[in-house]
Every structure is written in structure tokens, then in C-alpha cells.
């Protein structure tokens, strides 16, 4: 249990910190996967909407108009690259895949939360 190992030469601290998993970029690949599957549906004759477009400029404007929040210029395109495919994919899915599914409304949960808030004096 005591075999030593040397520190890892050649990789700086900044790089070490960047070496992490589970960022949004991986999620985007998953979304792209779904979008590809939907494109396959389209080839088989299932209609698919063109879908909305999201640019870095729109990201900046939405941040400012809806959230009173100034995005960094350097981030806007990256955010558009994450949110854009998501919105377009939902646009396509909603046309066909979700029609028979009821909304996940849980009155019991609302009652429970209200009781909890009452107990806390909220």
C-alpha cells in the first residue's frame, strides 16, 4: 500500500483544473445524437420543423432583456452552441413524441411543500 508515484511532470495547474468531466459540452453531444435520430425520422417521411435559430448576438440580447444580465462577449457563441441545438430538438420532438403524455403536475407535492412552509413559519 506504500508504493510511491512521482508527480505528473509536464501538466500545469491550470490544465489539471480543466481536466474535469461532465461539462455541458458532453450534454450537447447527447443532444446532437437525438437530433441525428430525429433527422432519421425525417428521412422516413416524418415532418420536422425548421426550428428556431440562436446566435451569439441573440444570447446577448436575451440575457440583457429577460434577465438584466450582461453576458461576456467571449461566452455568447458557446452558450448559443449549447442552447441552440436543445431548443431546435425540442421543437422537433414536441411535434410528435409528447402528445399523449400528461404534464407532471403533482398536487400532493404542492400540499406537502405548503405544509412544510407552514411548519417553518413561511
Amino acid at each position, binding site marked *: *500500500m506504500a508504493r510511491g508515484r512521482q508527480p505528473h511532470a509536464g501538466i500545469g495547474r491550470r490544465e489539471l483544473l480543466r*481536466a474535469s468531466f461532465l461539462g455541458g459540452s458532453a450534454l450537447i453531444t447527447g443532444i446532437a445524437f437525438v437530433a441525428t435520430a430525429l433527422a432519421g425520422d425525417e428521412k422516413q417521411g416524418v415532418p420536422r420543423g425548421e426550428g428556431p435559430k440562436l446566435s451569439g448576438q441573440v444570447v446577448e440580447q436575451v440575457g440583457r432583456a429577460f434577465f438584466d444580465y450582461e453576458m461576456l462577449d467571449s461566452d455568447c457563441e458557446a452558450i448559443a452552441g449549447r442552447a441552440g441545438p436543445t431548443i431546435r430538438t425540442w421543437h422537433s420532438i414536441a411535434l410528435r413524441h409528447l402528445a399523449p403524455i400528461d404534464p407532471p403536475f403533482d398536487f400532493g407535492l404542492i400540499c406537502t411543500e405548503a405544509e412544510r412552509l407552514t411548519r417553518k413559519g413561511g
Partner: protein
Amino acid sequence: MTGLRLQEVLTFEVATLSSKLRAREVSSAETTEAYLDWISERDGELGSYITVTQERARADAARADREIAAGDWRGPFHGVPVGLKDNVYTKGILTTGGSKVLADFRPGFDATAWAKLASQGAVLLGKLNLNEFAYGGLRKKCRNPYDPERLPGGSSAGPAVAVVAGMCAAAIGTDTSGSIRLPAAQCGCVGLKPTYGRVSRFGVIPLAYTMDHVGPMTRSVQDAALMMNVIAGFDENDSTSSREPVPDFTAALAGGVRGIRVGIIRELSDGLSDEVSRAFAVALTLLASSGAYVEEVSIPSLEFGALINATVTWVEALDYHERWLRERRNDYGREIRLNLETGMMIPALDYFRAQRGRARILAEALGTLRDHDVLVSPGVATTALKVRDYLRMDDKAKADLGYRNQLRFTQPFNATGQPAMAIPTALASDGLPISMQIVGRPFDEATVLRVAASYEAMRGPLSPPPI
């Protein structure tokens, strides 16, 4: 410590350590000092802890020894040193969430899961490393104990590393996209994401309220069951906490798999490395040879898991972080900041549709579980990557890797809320752990644990990490 070497104590499973503590073959104080010494000696390289609570641990251990000596044994965790992912509230103890935003935060109360474990006499060794708020990058390096040049997986990286490296006997982790199961798979421990609502989320820093799960990360299936016996159950402080009766999770462990029906998830059986594929096949053969019925099943909607998980997490995480994001943007790392800002772009309509879509996946999963007791897949597609290789990839390659090799296996079951466990199956030729995922019906962790325990017994012990 009669007849026991201190370092041997560090390798004990909770069940073994507990019996020796109860029989007073070893004291909690000695055990705790052994853990603290080992952490001090080696955690600089692995980075599993953010905060080590030496004095608290010593006080907990001394009290446990007094109580056990007086015949007041509280249960299997009495005197056992554990660690907590640093997004789990601990009263008066730093709880950073792995972020500069909470660098000085000391909660005023304990998370319910930890409070339950503490009430059973567990010893708190410290708070364990994680990706920033379980959603960004690592602020402190964390490495795989089987090879410190490899990634540990995330976001419960610290808990997995500490459990495997002998730096705590067991840990509590959290899982919103796979954050218990992925590091467990990459580092070689057992990680159980219970059913949504089975373990209270109260006092755990939220990531996505409707998909956050709290669960055990342990060295054995039995230890996971033992911890579930303590932390599971209704909590009036968590509105999403379930009133479903809590069984004795250890009761079914010896039930075996004869007659158990196992469904191999077709959609998660491709794109595997050769060794992962072989190890998975061997695991299935073991189950079948012990009397389980093993056959392929299909859940086509699994492909929507990533979309649903991303949409829900972006929005719910933003809801929690919005005020801090406005006031302290520069205290967030770039990766989590981009995720949170992306949440601003998601229409309410799409969040709503994502929540509706969860029922679609669960319906298909439950359809397969009408004829099967559990579903199985590989835990991840490959062994842990070298940090150096990962850093050389461009963003697209990293994204492709993260999804295809890891998240596609785990994310769907955060959306469905089903219990899902990662259990090591083998060590690959590069010496790194390979894992299998076992998924059950909602609130049927007992069957997941039963199958896992049976498999674990057939598999036999794996070589410990070379540290």
C-alpha cells in the same frame, strides 16, 4: 490493537470493521488515527479531501469507544470513519460545494442523510472533493487511485477516490447525471443511486431539484445496503421525500439470482472497448450460470435521456444559482458559469416538455421490467482516460467522449428516478476498474442489491489499488 496492523484496518469493509469495533478488537480512536495518518501521507497526490476534520473525527471516535465499551452499540456505523461529498451540509463545518462561492460557508445544520449517519455514531473524517457544485470543473485536482495519471470520473470524485484508496470506510455521494455511478465505475467502488425520494435531499446543495439523488459509495454491496438502512426513509423537511416503506436492505442480499430475470439494455450495449465488452459478457455469464435468465431488452427512448437531463439541469441549476451568478460571477469557474448562463436561454416550454418526456422513458423502462427483475448495462464504455490524453483533445472530442463513453449510460435513470448501481466487474489489462450498472424498479433497491451481492460473491475480490 491486538493482532491487527493499522494499514490492514484501512482495507476493512464497514461490515468487517464494525464487528471488530463492537468486539473491541480494535478501537475507533486507533482506526480513526490510522485513517488520518494515511490521508496526511497520501492524499496530497490523490486530492480526495477538501477539508479533513481531524479534531471532530477524534472526538467522534472517542465518544464511540466510550459508548461501545459501555454496551451502548448504536449500529453498524458506530465508530466507523466516513467521508461526505462537500455538497452535503455539516453543521459548523466548511461545506464549499467545491466552489469559491461557498469557500467560507459553514451550515447551521446537518443534512438529513448525514444527521442519520451521525446519530448512529459514524465518525466524520472530512469533506470530499467534487466538481464545482457538481456541475463544473474541479477546483482542486483529484486523481484515480488505480493510476494517478488517470481521471477519477465525476462529480463525486472525492468520495470514490477516498473509498478505494483507504481514506474513508464509506462515503455519501450525490447523483444528478451519473455523479455517484461514474466515479464509482472509474475508480472501482460500489455506488448506488437510490430511487428518487428514497433518501432525503434536505441539506444537500441542489443541482437539479427533480433529478438530485443522495446515496452510498462503498467498498462492497453489503456496505451499501448497511448505509441505505441508515440514510433511507421519509423526511418531513424534503417535500419530495417518499413515504414508501423502507425494508431492511441487507435482508435480501443472500437471496441469490436463481430465477431472477435480467434484461440487457440493447441501447447501452454498443460502442464499448473490447475489454469492457468482454468483462460485461463474463458478468452476464456468471449471472446466467447461477440460474438467472438473461436476455436482451430494448428501451428506445433512452436516447432522449441526455436531452431531458441537460434541459432540466440547466434550468433548475440556474434557479438555485441565479442570485449568486449576478452578484459573484467571477467566483464561478467558466464551465459551470456557461452551464448556468445556458439555462437563461432555455424556454419555459422546453423545460416543461423535458419534464413530460421523463414519463416516456420511464414507461418504456417499466414495460421491460414487467418481465424482468433488473436491467443491466456496462457502467461506462471504457476505463478511465489519462489526464494528459484528455487535455490534448479538442472540445468536440471531449464532448463526444463524455457522452458516448459515460453519460449515456447513467443520465436516463436520473430522468426516470429508478435505482441504479455501479459495481466493479474486473480490472482491465491497464490495471483500471471496469464496471456494470444494475437498474431496478422504483423503490426496489433490494432486488438491485440482491443481484449485485450475488454477482459480487461470484466475481470474488479485485486487487486493491497500487498505492
